[in-house]
């Protein structure tokens, strides 16, 4: 399954010139794509469109066989819950939940994801993912987010994005708070787990160097009208 965007135009208000224009973009299954763009370049808009919180004025976004811009608001929210996992820049996690609760929170809004992990059990699956991401210490699983390092927090965020094996993982500058060494290790882990889960990865960042690790790199500039 893949994501196909065609003839897309988006502007903040109707009758204004579009700020984002994508004639054709196709992301195949298991593909890892790097989209480069500095902040303020329309990155957030692109993520909003892919996540279904924004709808384009023209064109279509066909993801996993569904034209998501034709869905109603709550159907798009449901689509996001069922098919996408998000990782943000930093402070991805809810401070009042512990590590395992943060990871399994993704399943609360998606019965589909929940059904996928039901064979193992929610908590087991969360712990398995955390373990695979190097957070093996069981005492860590019950800890509050604030007691974790930034690197650990980002790995928890990855676990939350991957639980329930969504078709798409969208990452928005997840490594900007990490130093170069940790960043490489983080990316390797992310790639490895995305492969295991069978998720394609859309990675948005201003950092050219990160792009070197990807199969495919595009610049957001080409989507500027």
């Amino acid at each position, binding site marked *: 399954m893949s994501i196909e965007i065609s003839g897309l135009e988006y502007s903040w208000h109707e009758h204004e010139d579009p700020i984002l224009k994508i004639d054709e973009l196709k992301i195949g299954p298991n593909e890892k794509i790097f989209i480069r763009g500095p902040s303020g370049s329309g990155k*957030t808009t692109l*993520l*909003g469109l892919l*996540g279904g*919180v*924004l709808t384009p004025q023209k064109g279509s976004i066909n993801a996993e066989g569904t034209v998501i811009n034709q869905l109603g*608001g*709550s159907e798009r*929210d*449901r689509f*996001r*819950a*069922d098919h*996408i996992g*998000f990782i*943000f*820049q930093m*402070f*991805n*996690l*809810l*401070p*009042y*939940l512990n590590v395992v*609760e943060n990871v399994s*929170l*993704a399943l*609360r*809004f*998606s019965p589909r994801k929940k059904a996928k992990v039901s064979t193992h059990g929610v908590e087991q699956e969360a712990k398995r993912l955390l373990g695979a991401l190097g957070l093996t210490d069981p005492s860590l699983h019950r800890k509050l987010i604030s007691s974790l390092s930034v690197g650990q927090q980002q790995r928890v965020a990855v676990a*939350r994005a991957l639980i329930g094996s969504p078709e798409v993982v969208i990452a928005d500058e997840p490594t900007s708070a990490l130093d170069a060494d940790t960043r490489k290790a983080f990316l390797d882990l992310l790639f490895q787990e995305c492969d295991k889960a069978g998720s394609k990865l859309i990675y948005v960042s201003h950092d050219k160097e990160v792009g070197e690790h990807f199969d495919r790199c595009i610049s957001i500039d080409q989507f500027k009208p």
Partner: protein
Amino acid sequence: MISSSFYLSLRSMRNRMLSSSLTLLSIALSVALLLGVQRVREGARESFENTISDTDLILGARSGPVQLLLFSVFHIGNATQNISWESYQKWKNHPEVKWAIPISLGDSHKGYRVVGTDENFFSNYKFGRKNQLSYAHGSQFSDLFHVVLGAEVADELSYRLGDKLVLSHGISDVSFQDHEDKPFTVSGILQKTGTPVDRSLFISLEGLSAMHADWESGAPPLPGQELSAEQVRNMDLTPSDVTAMLVGLKSKMGIFKLQRAINDDKEEALLAILPGVTFRELWATLGVAEAALLVVAFFVVIAGVLGMASSILTTLNERRREIAIIRSLGAKPADIFMLLLSESVFLGFGGCLLGIILIYTALWFSQPFVETYFGLFIPIKALGLLDLYLILSVFLLSVFTGIFPALKAYRQSLVDGLTIKL
């Protein structure tokens, strides 16, 4: 997903324990105040209406019903006129009448009213839920110069059985005209009743006549014309009049008929009232203060609920990041609305529950104290229908007020989308 909203809202509130519990407490206190005012209102009303029971009619010379009730039952104020002894006898012996208690007022002892009456008072006067008077010590008067004391009188003035006391003419606190020559002996002290009986002294009608036997038209005897206590004993002490009478009927069916007959008495201008009706009339005038109390309590509730809404609103900005994260996990804007609304639901519900617990605990601890110092018995009983309506209205008010921060979060989440604001 309402369950997810509830789950997150509870966890989030737990994380903000201090501010959440303060908000909860402010709602709980306002609910407790509201219910407390309700309890005091009911208690006051009940103890007021329970001052006298089982009495079907109160008779006095023609005046106002409220005035008659005030002096005959509460011993407040004075009668302008009395009932003649003949009328008293006539209505006492009426075939419909089961018993009659004479009440003669006019004297006092250290600020407490002296009531002239007879043995019918001790056997037929009822208060509260048809409680009869009973004695803490001694028994009713058996001699002309015996007096029975109400509980408070005995307590405040430290009288015991056998003590001799001098009654005063008139009802002013400082009376210069004492019936010094005819002291009374305490023959009995009544149990506490929580009614004006506690603040009264009771002597026989004959004793009252005896005190005034040598008085001429309301003036003390001239020197040389005094009669000693022993001389008075041999005189005819039938009183010439009584101030009021309390009447119990054989059948409740005859009340209105007898009331009309008394009010139409051609021989003497009399007034018969139904105590319950006049109580309600009197309470209606006092009820303004009581209603004002409830209004004030409700304003406190409104203040508590507004405080809750404002504390939720202030957290909203700090929670934009949290809301964007939840949205990215697939939460609908409606889920965000519910997330914020459920906070008001929990605080409102918890506040009501805690308020109920608070007021019952407070009542349980303060009940004896309030009864001793204010003479007000506040019954501890299950919540009434009105209480439930009040609690429900507090709950609904907090949910309703919670709509505003929830709506703001809803709009905010639409604008913010997945954008994480710091």
